[in-house]
């Protein structure tokens, strides 16, 4: 499978665990679920995928969704506004 480069944005607990707010990542993952597991293994994120939601280009989407070069991906921990 071809690799692609995407932008990953980190917020809150992810930003602290990764140490940066954004980075470019090269990946061969086909789905966002695979991509999260790849990053979790690489960076040691503590959050389980089933506790999270995922966003592509600033909109919620399915973990089964595919993604393309240039997409902005963000993993969304449980929100706590209000």
């Amino acid at each position, binding site marked *: 499978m071809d690799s692609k480069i995407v932008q990953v944005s980190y917020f809150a607990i992810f930003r602290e665990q990764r140490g940066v707010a954004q980075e470019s990542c090269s990946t061969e993952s086909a789905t966002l679920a695979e991509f999260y597991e790849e990053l979790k293994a690489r960076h040691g994120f503590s959050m389980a995928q089933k506790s999270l939601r995922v966003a592509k280009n600033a909109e919620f989407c399915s973990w089964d969704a595919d993604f393309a070069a240039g997409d902005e991906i963000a993993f969304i921990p*449980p929100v706590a506004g209000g």
Partner: protein
Amino acid sequence: MFNLSVQAINSDELGRKLSSSEAGAFVTFEGRVRNHNDGKAVLRLEYEAYSAMAQKEADLVIAEARRLFPIIDLVCVHRVGLLEVGDMAVWVGVLARHRAEAFDACRYVIDQIKARVPIWKKEYYSDGSTNWVDCAECAAHAHTHALPPGER
């Protein structure tokens, strides 16, 4: 209208802008920083947002409220950054012809904002520890969070 604000929320000014001679009801909700959570003394909070997405998602929430309830106008402002105990974290104001739809729309908006708009809260406790609210317990022994209706 929804806005994230790095500055203190001026609810008087927001309220004055919500005006209509057709309105018989003006309902507001003000969320404030509480000095305790889960049995721990909270000194201050930090709110962080995924700004572009928070704006999109909150705009959707407000559009839904306008569809569901026959209101005249609605404004919501949410703080980001460091807040002290007693500070206003969020403000919702709804203008409507009658009180029922004003209360309902206000409740809908604050509940949906809390459930799905990407804003996170870090609490700083009196014992020196900190916690991203609702995140720590998602490590390892993960549990599933309720998703809003109509998962997109």
